[in-house]
């Protein structure tokens, strides 16, 4: 992930092969009445100007599962960013943040995962189709980590993701740490989850580390992935025929505790898996 604290690694041997950029961190939203509404955060943009790595855009706030329509200015900003940096693809989360409230939409303060209902599918499919048309490049939806899940959902999560991708035409950003978080907190088998997922839709995989929060495991991006996440990566990377990238997500605030060597070692370990995974994918096609 592109954050200033990791900049020394961008130019180092063994550094990343590409950057997953969160445009929300690089743009200032001056509000709906401002023109231009989204402006560069000068010091952050300098980070990207200084490197010549391929980029993908990973957004936080499209709020595609919200009861209110996505902000058209935000969608436009997504497209402009992708064009500007020639992003290979664009992604956001299976979540809602925008809340319909008296006086206009506002946000929930955190991304929330909806029940896996057909009503949500029917909302999201045309939104993603419009987004794909505007972006003119692949769009991926990411499976979210959640602390509350609705057992009476009309579909299970893999079936929901499969149908969402098939009907909308989007790809899947499979976050294996999010899957691990949910499996730990809700006591299900993550390998069975993978077994139910259409892995041909997976274009990018996220790996990350977490920490305990209020008695549950959280998606804190707190350091190298735990061993079970590596096991999930090993098991599924070779079964994803269209996989193009594995991204290590870590929040820079953890860097003093974790250390740059551990970050570099994580990249090296993920990179070492790639040839076997690629061979496995070739063998399956």
């Amino acid at each position: 992930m592109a954050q200033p604290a990791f900049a020394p690694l961008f130019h180092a041997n063994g550094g990343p092969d590409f950057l997953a950029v969160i445009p929300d961190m690089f743009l200032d939203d001056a509000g709906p009445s401002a023109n231009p509404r989204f402006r560069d955060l000068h010091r952050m943009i300098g980070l990207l100007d200084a490197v010549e790595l391929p980029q993908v855009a990973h957004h936080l706030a499209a709020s595609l599962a919200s009861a209110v329509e996505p902000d058209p200015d935000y969608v436009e900003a997504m497209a402009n960013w992708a064009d500007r940096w020639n992003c290979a693809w664009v992604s956001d989360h299976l979540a809602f943040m925008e809340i319909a409230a008296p006086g206009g939409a506002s946000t929930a303060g955190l991304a929330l995962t909806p029940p896996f209902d057909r009503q949500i599918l029917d909302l999201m499919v045309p939104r993603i189709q419009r987004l794909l048309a505007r972006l003119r490049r692949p769009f991926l939806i990411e499976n979210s980590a959640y602390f509350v899940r609705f057992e009476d959902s009309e579909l299970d999560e893999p079936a929901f993701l499969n149908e969402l991708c098939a009907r909308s035409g989007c790809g899947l950003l499979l976050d294996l740490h999010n899957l691990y978080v949910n499996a730990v907190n809700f006591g299900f088998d993550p390998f069975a989850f993978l077994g139910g997922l259409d892995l041909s839709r997976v274009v990018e995989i996220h790996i990350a580390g977490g920490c305990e929060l209020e008695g549950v495991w959280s998606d804190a991006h707190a350091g190298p992935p735990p061993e079970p996440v590596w096991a999930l990566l090993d098991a599924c990377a070779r079964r994803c025929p269209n996989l193009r990238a594995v991204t290590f997500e870590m929040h820079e605030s953890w860097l003093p505790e974790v250390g740059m060597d551990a970050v570099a070692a994580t990249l090296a370990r993920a990179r070492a898996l790639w040839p076997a995974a690629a061979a496995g994918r070739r063998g399956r096609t």
Partner: protein
Amino acid sequence: MSLADFQRALAALSASPQMVRDLRAGRRSVLDGFDLSPRERARLQHAANAPGMAAQCSLYRIMRLAALNAVLPRTLAALGSAVGPLVEAYWTSCPLHDLRFLPEAERFVAFLKRHPELLAHAAGTAADAVSDLLRIEFAIARAHRATLRGAASTVTRYRYRPSALLEAAAAGLGVLAALPRGRFQLRIETAPAGITLWEGPIDTAGQPSTMVISTRRAWS
């Protein structure tokens, strides 16, 4: 409106541990303000009972506090643990968040202006100093935002020397309370290249003459 209200209610639960406790205790009337189907009511009850709900409430607090800290870091550092009751009162009043940090901070500043008793209770004898510090930090953040609009100059007045407040903030409320009071003015000059702050006693004739800080542009 049912889905919209369900999402609003789930967000409200994340914002309010009290609402979670009420639902757990069977006080379902806390959902009366939302247009919900029976299934949605049952789902919100399930959410309130979920072991992960405490983490969800904590994550909400982490996210909203991070937004305020991005704009008002010295004020929050000065308040230390005393910031807890202030932000809880603010979040109860404004449970929905503005993703834009500056408007979110502006709402917090306006809330404290409407409720000076909360700041007085939290900061004690340092309340006036913290109030000035809050205004200064917000004025600086707003000036950074204004750099795109060209050159401007504003003068505001304080009870404490602005540079002393900015320097002493991290030391906490005890140090702020001991700062000498006076009558000071702060001039903020905004230009496309950045902002410059000048301070001086009000009683001095002319413009404030001591440079406090000069920063390059944050937005381009």
